[in-house]
């Protein structure tokens, strides 16, 4: 009972603390902007821990954060090995190949309305196939190791990246194109100096959407066959052994890696498309 009372008390205390900071004279400062979400995050973890202990929730339903932390620290080598297998080898390689191929395809079909109208529905069709159906087939084709996971990721990221790049390349005004025409610019010059820079906001939209798809694709694909390592493999086997603390540890790693991946791409975007109205300020 004591834990539950503590959880409620802690929650109310930090709530008032955050409200006080947000209304206070320093609300607009950088420190306050950092402090408020940190206090919120700490509160979630403390209340979670206290409620799990106070209500005697079984570890299989919801392990306390402390148990997940213990697992994170004690099983670091396994988690690292899984991370490399799934994220670096599977997701990242598939992401680069898929996004790269989609970008090249978009530039190639750009000059041909025929190919654009023909290829976009085919891409749409492939993207609409359920990952649960295509993953086992790709595992059969490319083997149990990371290559098949990479292939699943390629299939998942290709279409959103293609659509965004094609749309981005069309994202110029008549005046901007007329200007190139008055210079008698070649197709390649207009592409490099006008249409690709103008396409960057849309291209980065595609790249950002693809980051999350890549991680999901690589993890889910491991459910259909993998060597005895990888985040998806670990999650599916540990669930069978009721090792839910390990599952939660893997989820934590996946969440951190996915957020960092997205964050890095968003940061590059900020640098490349600094000129776009949505990035100024």
């Amino acid at each position: 009972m004591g834990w539950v009372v503590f959880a409620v008390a802690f929650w109310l205390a930090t709530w008032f603390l955050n409200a006080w900071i947000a209304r206070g004279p320093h609300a607009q400062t950088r420190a306050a902007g950092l402090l408020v979400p940190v206090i919120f995050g700490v509160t979630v973890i403390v209340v979670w821990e206290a409620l799990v202990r106070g209500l005697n929730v079984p570890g299989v339903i919801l392990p306390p954060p402390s148990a997940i932390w213990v697992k994170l620290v004690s099983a670091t080598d396994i988690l690292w090995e899984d991370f490399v297998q799934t994220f670096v080898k599977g997701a990242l390689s598939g992401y680069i190949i898929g996004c790269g191929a989609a970008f090249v395809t978009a530039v190639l079909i750009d000059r041909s309305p025929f190919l654009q109208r023909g290829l976009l529905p085919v891409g749409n069709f492939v993207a609409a196939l359920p990952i649960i159906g295509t993953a086992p087939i790709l595992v059969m084709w490319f083997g149990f190791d990371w290559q098949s996971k990479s292939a699943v990721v390629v299939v998942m990221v290709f279409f959103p990246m293609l659509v965004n790049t094609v749309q981005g390349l069309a994202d110029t005004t008549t005046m901007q194109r007329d200007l190139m025409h008055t210079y008698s610019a070649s197709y390649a010059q207009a592409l490099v100096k006008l249409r690709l820079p103008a396409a960057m906001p849309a291209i980065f939209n595609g790249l950002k959407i693809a980051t999350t798809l890549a991680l999901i694709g690589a993890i889910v694909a491991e459910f259909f066959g993998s060597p005895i390592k990888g985040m998806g493999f670990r999650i599916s086997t540990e669930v069978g052994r009721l090792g839910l603390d390990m599952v939660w540890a893997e989820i934590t790693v996946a969440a951190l890696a996915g957020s960092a991946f997205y964050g890095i791409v968003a940061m590059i975007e900020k640098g490349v498309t600094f000129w776009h109205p949505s990035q100024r300020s």
Partner: protein
Amino acid sequence: MTERPVIEAKDLDLTFQTNDGPIHALKGVDLNVNKGDFVSFIGPSGCGKTTFLRVVAGLEHPTGGTITVNGMSPDEARQNRAYGYVFQAAGLYPWRTIGGNIKLPLEIMGYAKSEQDAKIAKVLELVDLAGFEKKFPWQLSGGMQQRASIARALAFDAEILLMDEPFGALDEIVRDHLNEQLLELWARTEKTIGFVTHSIPEAVYLSTKIVVMSPRPGRITDVIESPLPRERPLDIRDTPEFLEVAHRVREGLRAGHAYD
């Protein structure tokens, strides 16, 4: 003048095919523009003044008649970098600095790096924007952006400057100032300028030759050789000569509307 006209149009026709049937944008347009002229095209919307400028630039192609620019077809003239074009809006590329925007045509035309920098410095000084080279377009006012776009059109030393309502979106005060600067620039560079506008005072103040046009079909109703001297302070607009020319332009515009 014994020299051949810079722009020579004979019986020029242009018909756009649209879903609502053909539109006669230009019909039987005859016009000569001599070297060093400042020619304004004035008329209500739809009279073909912008279309004519685009034909000169090779952005539209006539369906009848002939037109030569520097004795060549407009397309050849464009490939020979005969003209710089200034659009209704500045249309600077936002990912390039002011200097970078002016460098754009120089890069495309393959000027050497050292030559590029010298030309950028020269034209920035010409439009009174020295020191703004490293700013981005969205950090500048509308008038400054339009001046930068004029600098961009001047950068590669084209003989002809084509301007399509370049100051249409700016307020009266900025416009006066830019008109004055444009005259000064014209005197210094001795370019031939084609200038589309729908402001009578602007046309009369700037031009040596005013082409009055009327719509449906787009055609020329009057060509006025301005009696005003080449050097024009802003207060020339209060002199009787100025008002007389303005009156004739207004009459020409009214005549074009007579059977509407």
